[in-house]
């Protein structure tokens, strides 16, 4: 398939892909050649081509996570040539196109590396630590009953915008993967500040930040040292301002909550 762009020349690439049978096995980078890759393909489609080749040869395909393939689910997590989601800012791996690479390139593909994200197999990692952090407080408890009227709770536009920006986090974990400290603070801060900004989030405001930070520490993520790699690599542009808000919320909660533990 030559792609839709008639000028797009197909390319041949060398891939160095992390292969690891299971959580406990040792892994290593394995070299593969892929040929006739259209520049219009996404990175994942290129990996599909590789896997088809491998299947034809009777070898195990490379395991990697993906779902929506349109940049919203956050599961297509690959560390490509030393960068989370590859060299292109503001994209997930499924939105990264092969035209960003050149014919003859060697591309190194590794899984996210964090003690809290163990490798399941090959490029697929277990990000359930994020789920447990959300379960610890990243929600608003709502009573059942009738549907509330629209605009019953007034939220100023500027606040709604900031909360919405924070809410766009897709939970991909690129922040953890790219952080020197494997810190999850950008992820946690996005949820904490989204809900702290909104009236609906006030009831659980203090317990939320206390419990989410406690769970984050328990999972073994590192502590933020304000390096900024996370925000630079985040596919949806969650800003570092959220981490300052998280710190502020944490300080205020610890100083004033009724939690004595």
């Amino acid at each position, binding site marked *: 398939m030559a792609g839709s762009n008639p000028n797009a020349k197909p390319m041949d690439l060398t891939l160095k892909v992390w292969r690891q049978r299971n959580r406990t096995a040792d892994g290593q980078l394995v070299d593969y050649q892929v040929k006739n890759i259209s520049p219009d393909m996404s990175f994942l489609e290129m990996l599909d081509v590789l896997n088809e080749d491998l299947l034809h040869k009777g070898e195990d395909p490379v395991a990697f996570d993906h779902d929506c393939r349109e940049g919203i689910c956050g599961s297509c997590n690959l560390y490509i040539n*030393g960068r989370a989601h590859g060299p292109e800012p503001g994209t997930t791996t499924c939105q990264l196109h092969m035209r960003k690479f050149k014919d003859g390139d060697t591309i190194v593909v590794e899984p996210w590396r964090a*003690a809290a994200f163990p490798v399941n197999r090959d490029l697929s990692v277990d990000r359930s630590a994020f789920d447990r952090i959300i379960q610890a407080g990243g929600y608003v408890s709502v009573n059942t009953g009738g549907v509330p009227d629209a605009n019953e709770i007034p939220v100023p536009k500027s606040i709604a915008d900031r909360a919405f920006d924070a809410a766009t986090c897709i939970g991909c974990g690129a922040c953890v993967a790219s952080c020197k400290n494997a810190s999850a603070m950008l992820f946690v801060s996005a949820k904490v500040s989204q809900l702290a900004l909104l009236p609906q989030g006030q009831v659980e405001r203090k317990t939320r930040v206390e419990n989410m930070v406690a769970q984050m520490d328990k999972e073994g993520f590192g502590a933020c040292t304000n390096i900024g790699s996370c925000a630079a690599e985040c596919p949806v542009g969650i800003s*570092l301002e959220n981490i300052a808000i998280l710190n502020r919320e944490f300080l205020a909660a610890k100083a004033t909550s009724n939690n*004595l533990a």
Partner: protein
Amino acid sequence: MSWLSNALSSSIGRKIIMSITGLFLCSFLVIHLIGNLQLFKNDGGVAFNIYSHFMGTNPVIRTIEFVLLAGFVFHIYEAIALTGRNKAARGPQGYKVDNIGQNSPWQSRNMGLLGTIILIFLLVHLYNFFYRARFGDLDPDINSNDDLYTLVASSFKQWWYVLLYVLAQVALAYHLIHGFKSAFQTLGLTHRKYTPFITYFGYAFSIIVCAGFAAMPLYFFFLK
């Protein structure tokens, strides 16, 4: 009080101690720099020796000295605790290829290294000047104050000493270029109106303070 110790040993709590002690150490740098500017006075060290005699004997200053020591101890302790935790968080297998340099400034990723250089400098510095002024046997100057000035002047005639001082100030400048603004971020003291100012101020602060300190050994080596 377990809530307090739990809060302070959490990842954010440790960072908050780092930032408060870091900013406290910055305030110390200002005092230390202003006082030491008397080294540039062309009076054979009389004013500098009066100043250092005051700093070494005044009970208020002597008390604050312990606070300063505590500031360093906590800052360094938390730096070690955080760096250990953060190294472990990557897990046993790191990246084979990591181009983290493309997404972040060097000094931000090397605060521990820069801090270690500062610490080594600090130990040499304390041994040579502080220890000998406090516990050593300096000759008296014309006011019969301990003549620390002559010790400083002769130390800064040795090239390796001057080199160590200047390198340490470069390391400190980089440490603070990241650290100053980082401390405000850690404390949650950010605002769209003021954060740009804090960033520029921190930058200027780092360069001016460290250039001021570095000027002292250079002055004695080249101009005295």
